[in-house]
């Protein structure tokens, strides 16, 4: 084994060069790196959010709310279709997951059933429609979503939410955010850097459903208190300073889906407001509604809360206007960018957040560097003291191993996290174990009466099985850890995994070549470790 075949030497040199070349970008100052020729690798280790600072947000699409909204829309759809077809009905109700309606005239029953069956709901990607329409007793028709529809709707909501979130975050000016889908109804947002996590959360999490609704001024305060509200009205809480709540017409004059533009602006007094513009259809509707209701108040409603309720002074024909309310510079700016990006299809909830300040991250990097340096220094010293020259060989193999780990991680853009640093330290220790096994085996063989060269050779050969055996267990543990979970622990598993693989290679092959050279150069008859 110690006979140095050419491929072994080439492999060792290649790995050392690989490690050095791919690790170098991490060690060079940025100015030197930029000046380096482009064929050299420039990729650095990417640091996890716990080291560079930043926010990790796991958002969950509220599937219950989504489902409820789809059912409400379904009910309204049934009402509209039947009205258009001039079919008289009664008893249109939404109970649980089912919409049911009674067709008054038995002569229209079959017609209504056919009509609803053909026109209600939407096509599914796999074919078929997303609703079941059934005839039930007493001239009732029952409509419900097929089970698959909920999943499709959730996935669709996630896809649309991701697009909208991306627009919002880009507008906020975050650097290199990553937005990815997780599972059926979750979205992971990773935003490195110092941006304010609470502002980020607020901008992402606002559903931003904007509607302009008329205020129902026919109701007295007593009616409102007593809860005598007509079925096509609703009571919504208010954030203006005038009233705690308003009674509004349910039907919106216009909604945020028709906005083409929104921007933070100022009114004549200099207080922040939001300027907006509607598209053609929105402008037309807004003009009609305002001209019909001059002198009456209407409410600007965001996510079921009234922002303000101005009185219509005259018809507004141009399709543009301003929203006034209790805004600060920042909140008007943020709300404008949220409105422009469009409403989320369903509310999002934060189910996990990890934010590390840049300062803390920098401290962690320092601590990590220090502990790696100290750990490595202790290992080097110890192994040199313990095994002398051969310890030096092991230390060299270890150094190349370190380079290779960092090189591989830089090459594959693997992320180094704080626990990953611990993984790195542990890996160095495990790497030494391979050399210890080899050297102890050599000592055994010498004790058994073999000459130095043959003992060294047998040491490598016979320790190999044990080394592989011993490392398989670590690999298994690391793979499981990687599948377990969240970012930081994944980082630990990854460094451990890469480290174990490279360490078997370096500890066995590199020390072998070094010891081979040593034998060739010094023709030693004894081993320095016996």
């Amino acid at each position, binding site marked *: 084994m110690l006979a140095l075949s050419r491929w072994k030497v080439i492999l060792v040199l290649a790995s050392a060069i690989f490690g050095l070349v791919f690790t170098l970008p991490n060690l060079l100052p940025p100015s030197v790196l930029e000046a380096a020729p482009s064929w050299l690798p420039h990729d650095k280790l990417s640091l996890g959010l716990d080291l560079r600072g930043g*926010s990790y*947000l796991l958002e*969950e699409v509220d599937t219950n709310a989504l489902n409820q909204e789809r059912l409400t829309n379904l009910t309204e759809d049934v009402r509209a279709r039947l009205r258009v077809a001039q079919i008289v009905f009664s008893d249109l109700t939404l109970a649980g997951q089912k919409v049911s309606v009674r067709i008054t005239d038995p002569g229209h029953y079959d017609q209504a059933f056919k009509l609803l069956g053909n026109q209600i709901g939407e096509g599914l990607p796999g074919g078929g429609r997303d609703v079941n329409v059934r005839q039930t007793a007493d001239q009732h028709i029952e409509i419900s979503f097929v089970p698959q529809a909920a999943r499709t709707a959730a996935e669709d909501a996630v896809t649309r939410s991701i697009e909208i979130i991306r627009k919002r975050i880009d507008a906020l000016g975050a650097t290199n955010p990553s937005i990815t889908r997780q599972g059926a109804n979750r979205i992971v947002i990773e935003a490195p850097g110092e941006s304010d996590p*609470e502002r980020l*959360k*607020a901008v992402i999490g606002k559903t931003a459903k904007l509607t302009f609704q008329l205020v129902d001024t026919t109701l007295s305060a007593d009616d409102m208190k007593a809860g005598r509200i007509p079925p096509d009205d609703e009571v919504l809480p208010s954030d203006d300073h005038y009233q705690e709540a308003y009674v509004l017409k349910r039907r919106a004059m216009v909604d945020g889906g028709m906005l083409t533009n929104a921007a933070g602006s100022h009114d004549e007094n200099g207080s922040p407001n939001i300027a907006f513009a509607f598209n053609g259809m929105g402008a037309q509707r807004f003009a009609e509604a305002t001209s019909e209701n001059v002198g009456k108040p209407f409410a600007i409603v965001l996510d079921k809360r009234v922002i303000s309720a101005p009185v219509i002074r005259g018809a507004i024909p141009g399709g543009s206007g301003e929203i006034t309310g209790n805004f600060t510079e920042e909140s008007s700016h943020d709300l404008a960018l949220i409105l422009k990006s469009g409403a989320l299809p369903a509310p999002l*909830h*934060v*189910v*996990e*957040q990890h*934010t*590390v*300040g840049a300062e*803390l991250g920098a*401290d*962690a990097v320092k*601590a990590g560097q*220090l*502990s790696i340096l100290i*750990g490595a220094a202790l*290992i080097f010293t*110890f192994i*040199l*003291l*313990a095994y*002398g020259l051969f310890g030096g060989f092991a230390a060299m193999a270890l150094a190349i191993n370190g380079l290779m780990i960092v090189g591989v991680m830089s090459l594959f853009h693997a992320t180094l996290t704080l*626990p990953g640093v*611990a993984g790195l*330290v*542990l890996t*160095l*220790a495990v790497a030494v*174990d391979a050399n*210890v*096994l080899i050297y*102890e085996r050599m*000592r055994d063989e010498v*004790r*058994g*009466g073999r000459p130095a060269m043959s003992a060294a050779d047998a040491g490598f050969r*016979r320790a190999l*099985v*044990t080394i592989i055996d*011993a490392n398989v*267990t*670590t690999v*298994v*543990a*690391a793979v*499981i*850890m990687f*599948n*377990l*979970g969240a970012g*930081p622990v994944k980082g*630990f*598993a990854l460094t451990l995994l890469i480290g174990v693989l490279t360490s078997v290679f370096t500890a066995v092959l590199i020390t072998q070549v070094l010891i081979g050279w040593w034998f060739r150069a010094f023709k030693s008859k004894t081993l320095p*470790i*016996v």
Partner: protein
Amino acid sequence: MWPLIKLLPKKTNVPFVSLARVFATLSILAVIATGVGAVWPGLNLGIDFKGGTVLEFNTGARSADLAKVRSAVSGLNLGDVQVQRFGADNDAVVRFQTPAGADAGVVATKVKGAIASALGQVSFLRTDVVGPEVSGELEWKGLAALFTAVGLMLIYIWFRFELQFGLGAVVALFHDLTLSFGLILLLRLEFSLNLVAALLTIIGYSMNDTVVVFDRLRENRRKYKRMPLRELIDLSVNETLSRTVITGLTALLALSGLAAFGGESLRPLSIVLLFGIVIGTYSSIYVASPIILLWGMRRDDEPARPIGPQPANARAIPKP
């Protein structure tokens, strides 16, 4: 006298097996103590598994007025809120559970607002929020990971060694896991995902150490056919002793650097790993091997032919 390895006696004859009874008793006591500790005072679950929020903030030049923070937060109806100093005078940590039904992210934002308005200038160094949806999943995933790891090690051992070896290794594995868990209980460490990672690493290391001793035991069994099992075990442990000591020391040295300088958040992880290495080493000597002794080892039907790579000029078998 350098290198130091020359100082180690060439051949050690520590009668490990004869001390096995004493250590087995100690081990059993420690395992029982862990069992008691798991019931009372119980595991200090971190937010990864329990859900909730941890906020760390810094008040700059002024020291943090914790009483103010407490009164500001108590108005928010969050139930039990812990406010503690964290390291320095101007550093503090607030922990609380998200009330049922509330949006964890929204509650965290509210609390941050309350702290900021109570103290004026504060910078939040760290915000960790884990909602109940996620913590439930993580709890399940963490347990599943530990069980899978143990299961896979079993399969591995089963392939690699015969039954009685496997049994010893498994008992050693559970022993190490239990006692590491015991340490976590004893030090009241917050049980987090990081610690699950540490436990998984310990499973790997403990196995590794046991495998090395067993490999030698199996080899010696073929070499010294007539040697009594007790002596065979002592011999094998003694032969691998220098490796065990050196590898263990290297790992301890490296990790002690991590424990001392790696910072607050890595300390629990490194402490548990340090302990795991000590206990993993101990168990391969005092738990895994004695189990084999207890169980006995079939040797009669062992074929005389040596398996695996053997030098052509095999040494003469010394008389036991």
